[in-house]
């Protein structure tokens, strides 16, 4: 299992395809086409394509998952007609958005109007190149992958603000301002909560952080950090109760009011990409990544790609909690949001850092390993 990695799969694919082509070609061409450099180069491209396809597919399934879950919370069924249980509904929606004309307001600034959503989308997709999905299923060994992921994650307010400002709409502008204020306010506690994790794990590498959780998942010792991180993620993902930037009731659609067609689809997809990344980060940092407790029967953990399967299950469950929150809570007001962010979340996150340092210093972490309910 551990020898199968994303790169090895793409290398095998590229190798097989190129050799198949080479076998039918005449002599000089076939040796050229099957040389090692070309195979490696194509393998990198295949790698990227696989990553892209996997992330997009996951995002679309995530939207389906949210629709179905939200439906049950609301005493209805969600999408039903296209595909089995509406699985293909989002593809139909995406195709419809793809076919639509992109309308640009006359007074809008084309540069910002078009680059905003595109950059938002691209930066969100970069994240998938960073996050490990299972052992070996990542894009390589990055010692600071957590830091990189959070850095890329926090690009978003800039692009949101650019696209909001350039759409030349008062609602968009207000939404953009709110978005920027909110994301900056919640970036700090989010990072401090991550610092607590890093203190306990002793590494910025996500893979290492997951392996550090072999004995106990971090949600036990770092419960405070988890709460802060979860709330911060809600704000970063702009979901209820922190979805003020696109507060439908007063701001129409917030910063993407003027966007339609594929540009709107970019925003929508990127939002859910970020939601997926948020859930993945929660799983990686606090819920043991792709590992399972030892009391789980071996049959459940030893089948091929078990790591990825359990990882996705955990991710979708975490996202389900986000949906649950969305289904049951109203949205807060801007000033309340900022007050909670600065007055509550930052002290809490500082407390979590302190607790993490305390735990590490007095070396009482293994205590958590003794309680089976808290993890392995």
């Amino acid at each position, binding site marked *: 299992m551990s020898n199968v990695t994303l790169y090895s799969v793409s290398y095998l694919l590229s190798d097989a395809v190129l050799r198949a082509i080479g076998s039918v070609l005449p002599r000089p061409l076939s040796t050229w086409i099957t040389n090692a450099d070309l195979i490696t180069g194509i393998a990198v491209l295949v790698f990227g394509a696989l990553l892209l396809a996997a992330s997009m597919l996951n995002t679309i399934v995530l939207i389906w998952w949210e629709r179905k879950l*939200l439906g049950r*919370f*609301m*005493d*209805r069924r969600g999408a039903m007609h296209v595909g089995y249980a509406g699985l293909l509904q989002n593809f139909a929606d995406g195709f419809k958005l793809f076919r639509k004309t992109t309308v640009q307001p006359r007074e809008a600034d084309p540069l910002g109007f078009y680059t905003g959503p595109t950059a938002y989308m691209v930066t969100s997709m970069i994240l998938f190149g960073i996050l490990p999905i299972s052992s070996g299923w990542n894009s390589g060994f990055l010692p600071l992958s957590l830091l990189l992921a959070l850095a890329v994650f926090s690009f978003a307010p800039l692009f949101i603000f650019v696209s909001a400002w350039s759409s030349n709409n*008062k*609602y968009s502008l*207000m939404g953009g*301002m709110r978005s920027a204020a909110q994301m900056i306010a919640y970036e700090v506690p989010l990072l401090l909560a991550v610092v607590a994790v890093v203190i306990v794990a002793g590494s910025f590498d996500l893979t290492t952080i997951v392996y550090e959780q072999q004995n106990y998942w971090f949600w036990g010792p770092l419960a405070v950090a988890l709460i802060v991180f979860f709330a911060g993620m809600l704000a970063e993902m702009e979901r*209820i*109760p922190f*979805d*003020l930037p696109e*507060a*439908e*009731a*007063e*701001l*129409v659609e917030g910063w993407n009011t003027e966007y339609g067609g594929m540009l709107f689809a970019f925003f929508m997809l990127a939002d859910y990409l970020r939601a997926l990344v948020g859930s993945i980060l929660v799983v990686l940092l606090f819920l043991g990544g792709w590992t399972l407790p030892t009391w789980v029967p071996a049959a459940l953990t030893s089948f091929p790609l078990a790591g990825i399967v359990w990882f996705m299950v955990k991710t979708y469950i975490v996202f389900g909690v986000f949906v649950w929150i*969305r*289904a*049951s*809570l*109203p*949205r*807060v*007001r*801007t*000033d*309340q949001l900022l007050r909670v962010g600065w007055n509550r979340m930052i002290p809490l996150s500082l407390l979590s850092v302190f607790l993490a340092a305390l735990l590490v210093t007095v070396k009482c972490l293994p205590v958590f390993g003794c309680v089976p309910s808290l993890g392995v």
Partner: protein
Amino acid sequence: MSEMWINMGPQHPMTHGLWNLRVRIDGETVLDVDPEMGYLHRGIEKISEDRHYNEVITLMDRTCYVAGLAWEHLYIIAAEKALRIQPPERADYLRMMCEEFQRIGSHLMWYAAFVQDIGLMSPFLYGMRDRDLVLDLFQSYTGARMTYEYMRVGGVRNDLPPGFTDQARKVLDWLIPRFKEYDQLCLGSDIFHKRCDHLGVLSASDCIRHGVTGPMLRSAGVKRDLRKNRPYSLYKDVDFDVAVADGADVTARYLVRMEEMRQSVRILRQVVDWLDAHPGPVMAETVPRWMGAPYAPVGREGYLLKRQYPKGVGFSSIEEPHGEAQAYVVNEGGEHPYRVKFRSPVFANLSAARTYLVGYHVADIPPIMGSVDVCVGECDR
């Protein structure tokens, strides 16, 4: 950010209908508001002058599309006074049942829209789901879910179908625990209190000065309910309490409406029991033929038929779900009312917008306006 005007409406998720709220803001603070109504003006009062007395009922359902039966009731009382017709007692009870069910339906619709305004998603569907049962009941005896056309001058169109009262009791039993669920979702949430307490305060004196009535007035602590203060129909025969709250804020309005729904259930239980025990005619015996659904044609040349009708005027005011509605019908002896005039409570409630909106945040506008319970149809008529 400097000051600017923004238009919330006519197409805006906050408006719940077709009206415009112009807001002058400084950053997120509301400095001034200017409600503009009239986008949905259909001239119902003028059209009524060209309609037969019973045909006006079809317009009443469209005047307020969430409380059609209450407006039918309002018009019918005025028209019957103008025409000097006395409905039978059972018809009055049926109308009271209509109005109270309509109050529940309208308040559920308000609840759904209001929670959507503060960002709650699932209670929106709970409210609509439970309103659907009320609509099912309407459908079972009036034949339609939204445009009922049930009341007639001199009575109501038809009696209840068999088994209706049992079904109505079942729905009432189903509704009471749902109200508790609504309270859990709203009052049980800290965020709800953060959003709605001390918001959109409109004091009792301001209410009276602006002519604000209904749940908004009662939320300011004024015990005024026309069903109690000036009982029309047969409301003096049923036992209920007036829901009053103090605070005059959004939460108080929520509490008043929730309590009103509970009181409506209480009234309905009595009314349904009465209807079970007292069968009888639902149409007055003294209604002239031309008051029935078919009416005489006006002839090829369009002259009015030579018929001397009794003249008179009728005035009625009822406690509609949104507030105190009034109707004035002038009967000059023709087939059609000479003049029909309605007083819409929503118009007054909206006109006071400047008093209860200025000074709050932009994000507070949807909950405050949601708590007003806007029905633009009856506001613009």
